[in-house]
């Protein structure tokens, strides 16, 4: 059911761990739902200099976390915010329909971590809409979002 890319990403995940002095941490999901993602960001300038994750969840959740963290490493916060769950799915070569929510979770965890950075810096958090947003165009209010 999974693509080879998902399996490869899952069996050999990158960026697993924590960042003791992270500039932002985001966590989404719940154990009752069967998946939790926590993402740690280290920012240098406006760039993501380091990113780590911990995930409790299925293969798609772990693969999505790994892929998403690899994608945003080196990005500006605004660029990272703009990464959609569809981008993650694409990078994984596709996900089964029942597992697409894992990519949404990864995006949401990144955004939660970004907003944590912003809040700690005394900035307004960017507006987060329901995860349904990723499906349609134009429903995400963030300016950098296409």
């Amino acid at each position, binding site marked *: *059911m*999974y693509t080879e890319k998902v*399996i490869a990403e*899952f*069996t*050999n*995940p990158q960026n*697993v*761990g924590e960042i003791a002095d992270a500039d932002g941490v985001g*966590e989404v999901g719940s*154990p*009752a*739902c*069967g*998946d*939790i*993602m*926590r993402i740690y960001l280290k920012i240098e300038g406006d760039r993501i200099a380091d990113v780590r994750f*911990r*995930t*409790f*969840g*299925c*293969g798609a*959740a*772990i693969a999505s976390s790994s892929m998403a963290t690899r994608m945003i490493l080196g990005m500006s916060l605004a660029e990272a915010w703009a990464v959609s769950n569809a981008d993650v799915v694409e990078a994984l070569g596709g996900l089964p*329909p*029942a597992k697409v*929510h894992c990519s949404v979770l990864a995006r949401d965890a990144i955004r939660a971590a970004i907003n944590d950075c912003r809040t700690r810096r005394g900035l307004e958090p960017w507006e987060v809409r329901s995860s349904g947003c990723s499906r349609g165009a134009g429903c995400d209010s963030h300016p950098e979002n296409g």
Partner: protein
Amino acid sequence: MNDQDQRPVYMDHAATTFMKPEVIAAMAPYFSQHFGNPSSLYRFARESRMGVDEARREVGAAVGASPEEIFFTAGGSEADNWAIKGVALANRKRGDHIVTSSIEHHAVLHTCEWLEKQGFSVTYLPVDEFGLLDPGDVRDAITDRTILVSVMAANNEIGTIQPVAELGRVAHDHGVLFHTDAVQAVGAVPIDVDRMGIDLLSLSGHKFYGPKGTGALYIRRGTRIENLIHGGGQERGRRAGTENVPGIVGLGRAIELATADIEAHNRRIAAMRDRLVRGILSAIPDARLNGHPTERLANNANFSFRYVEGESILLLLDAHGICASTGSACSSASLEPSHVLLAIGLPHEEAHGSLRLTLGDANTEEDVDYVLEVLPEVIGRLRQISPLTPAHARMPEAD
């Protein structure tokens, strides 16, 4: 890490089994040689008829029934649907209430839910922490509107074996019919429909080294039951459709082999299973064995590993060539954890972190060794990744 090319260590015999060579050999002549329709008059079709008759005797003998009480179906699900809908619809005048357990297979649960939509009422009884149903609860649930008690003989996830004979007695004490889904029990638990007070019993060939798409429903003589599949006069007018002759012959041969010496078979399998359980529980902290300590299928081991999720365990095991199963219904669209694990009281996150290993005839001690070698490492890696893992249960970070 990647042992893709070695032979798989198959420990998912509760999901399905390979067909034994004897079973394939028994079926082979019926593909293109003795291919006649058993309903046909001519001598050429006699081989088909005899093959079906012989299988009916074998299935009857395996459960202590007479051949005329055995009706072939296309599997366990059809047998469950037929038993429950058939009895319900045929006895509607007598009552509209069914008693079952909350840990039944979906073939029973969803059938009961369908009947609820048709106006029947169903009581889904809870089980204890080991998955056991209390016959006293069944007694208390029976009302004068009750027409059927349906309780599985053995659970497919945690392997718990129910006190079938007691349940049958309770049902019969109240003049209520008793159905048991014995799909997981046949070949693993000796069954005698008379001694156990069973009126209807479902079984499925592919769970005991027989063909997929074959099964049977035992119906005690005189039981009021409607047909599920209407049409031709096959199966003495009870189940329409040209008989799957090779499949039926294979089912007969398989059940004969599976029930020939259950005790010796169980001894061998349980010895391996017990070593597996001991090994896993001693090597992996924060692990528990789900199901009953003694009243369980000889081949079943079901664990919960805290902090990790079941599907990811499966996938990593798969990367090592180990085939197993989890109660997390990942392959379906549902993200619900197993209703069985929730029913025995597991919190959601532990229900999500379950692993089922079910042994079978081709497993060896080397397979057990291999799983004991691989599984602790797999759980360790996933706990390394999980945010739920407490520091004491985590290995030092690698990178």
